[in-house]
């Protein structure tokens, strides 16, 4: 095992603004794409993955401290934004782990340029339409009060809490969380958290793919995840018990070894 280097936050100049990237560890690079609620600092999942990999965890434009990028206002634009960034940072063909909305983004990247992705891990990912037109596939926590919002995210909301924006929050954190929610709407409001065309394009993915799901995800169900996995050639589906929408946060000790084994494996 390579020795992990200390994590650092980088504000990388980008156009007229900045891109926030959390970096840590050493070894082969793995690109982590966050979900609609953003990164909550250097998280345990980052630290654990950094034991084996160089972790690269950007905040998407508009999230965290990353500024919006002119012209980047859809998931389509974000996918091309990351394809450019991956090329610039010499990550291609990349190992990508995408969580929630970040999983959707990873899939959009992989269907556009299949050779740009070598390993793909989708964790409780949104992005496709599965059910009939009168059934929402993805829950809408953004209109809920804090308690039901938390209940939608966690298997055990008494043991875990997402940093939802609230009046007592430290202002820098509050601003970042408000920007996360705003940007989740910006990219994902309509059609809500999916691209109607994505499912029919998933067959293009060439990366070896692992689909991981919290067995108790109440925001987007495991059966949705099974359809996601079945739509990607050769993808494996693994369910993690006693975890909700964030298996990497609720059960990192279960999630991380699984991810590491998969990311290290040869074809």
């Amino acid at each position, binding site marked *: 095992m390579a020795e992990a280097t200390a994590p650092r936050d980088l504000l990388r100049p980008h156009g007229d603004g900045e891109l926030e990237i959390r970096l840590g560890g050493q070894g082969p690079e793995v690109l982590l794409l966050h979900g609609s609620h953003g990164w909550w600092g250097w998280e345990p999942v980052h630290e654990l993955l950094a034991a084996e990999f160089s972790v690269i965890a950007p905040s998407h434009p508009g999230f965290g401290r990353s500024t919006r990028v002119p012209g980047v*206002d859809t998931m389509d634009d974000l996918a091309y934004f990351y394809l450019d960034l991956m090329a610039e940072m010499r990550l291609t063909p990349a190992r990508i782990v995408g969580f929630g909305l970040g999983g959707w983004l990873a899939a959009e990247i992989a269907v556009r340029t299949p050779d740009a992705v070598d390993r793909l891990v989708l964790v409780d990912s949104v992005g496709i339409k599965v059910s009939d037109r009168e059934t929402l596939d993805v829950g809408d926590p*953004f*209109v*809920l*009060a804090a308690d039901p919002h938390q209940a939608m995210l966690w298997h055990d909301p008494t043991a875990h809490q997402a940093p939802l*924006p*609230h*009046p007592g929050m430290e*202002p820098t954190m*509050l*601003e970042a969380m*408000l*920007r996360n*929610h*705003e*940007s*989740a*709407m*910006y990219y994902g*409001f*309509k059609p809500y958290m999916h691209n109607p065309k994505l499912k029919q394009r998933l067959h293009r993915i060439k990366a070896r793919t692992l689909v991981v799901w919290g067995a108790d995800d109440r925001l987007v169900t495991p059966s949705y995840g099974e359809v996601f996995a079945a739509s990607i050639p050769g993808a494996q589906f693994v369910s993690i018990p006693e975890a909700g929408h964030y298996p990497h946060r609720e059960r990192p000790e279960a999630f991380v070894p699984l991810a590491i084994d998969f990311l290290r494996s040869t074809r």
Partner: protein
Amino acid sequence: MLAYHFTEMPYPFFSPEQEKDGGPRVIMPNSTFDPQIGADLYNRYLDDYIYADELGLEIMLNEHHQTATCTDVCLSISAGALARQTRRAKICLLGNPLPHRDNPVRVAEEVAMLDNVSRGRIISGFVRGVGTEVHPANTNPALTRERFEESHDLIIKAWTTREPFAWEGKHWHYRYVNVWPRTYQQPHPPIWITGTSPDNVPWIADHEYTFAVFLLSYDDATRLFNIYRRRTEELGLAEPGPDKFAVLALCYVGETDEEAWDEGRAIQWYLQRVRHPGFTNPPGFNSVRTQMMIMSGIDKPRGDSFESLREKGIILAGSPKTVVKQIKEWHNRGVGHLLLMNQSGPMDAAMTRKSMKLFAEEVYPEIKDLPAVEVDWHSMDPSQALFA
């Protein structure tokens, strides 16, 4: 000072139990609505507007969607009825929710037709729509500002262009825009814009439009007006007169203060409705800066007592003499248009009209032709600016 009659056309017949989980907006089941009652209400509210015309008041209309608090779902329908059934009143549409109207050319056509039918009595207000409008229209809340501005630009261009033109913007695309009819008022009806945070006030000032605020205190409204004034000064534009500032307040006039302060409390119904935070303030709808200010507790006039709301000028209630005094305070702050929510919740026609008549006969003559005042806004402390 011009005064406008306004009702949200509420459907007030629901119980606290029906209201408690989600409030009366967006998700209250429409099983609550009885069309037999609703038909009577629509006709009665329209009759009240005709009565306002007869009393010499102007008219203001608005629209909302999927809510029991306001059953006017289309300004062009209510204004269409009133354009024919009234004779003299200005009809202020406040306003068309531009981000949520998917065809701006259709908005331009409808307002132009109303302006013709009414022979130039239309005031064309444009609004971004409150947060609860995001879900009925399913408009991306984070895009409402830019959709508002592009739609506005297209509508103005459509009204002021005398030949077909093309529009290939971000949100709207047309090869041939050619609005028939032309507006009756030229180059187009007066434009009014609403605002409740500093986010869009400079934009309103840039265009020298009339700026309307709803249910704000004397001081909070003045702070927003001063942002407008400062902006026009910076741009070297004319000092904005009373025609540029409008306020909406709840109003109930009684024979005596005691009578108005007793039965007139009914006017608070609108403020007392349950507000669902997720629908009222969806993420992305307000800027992050404004969200942070809301979270710091600045946006709480609704919890106020009747007495406090009167002191702040959010509720105008009392004898004619008392209400005249309250309105003069608005006048002294440079306001030229007073939008009066004369009806709220279950207030019936008799009660509403009693107050309207007292207003028209005993209040309006005292305030209608007040001499212009010089507002000494430079001496007001800019650090006190709302949300600044």
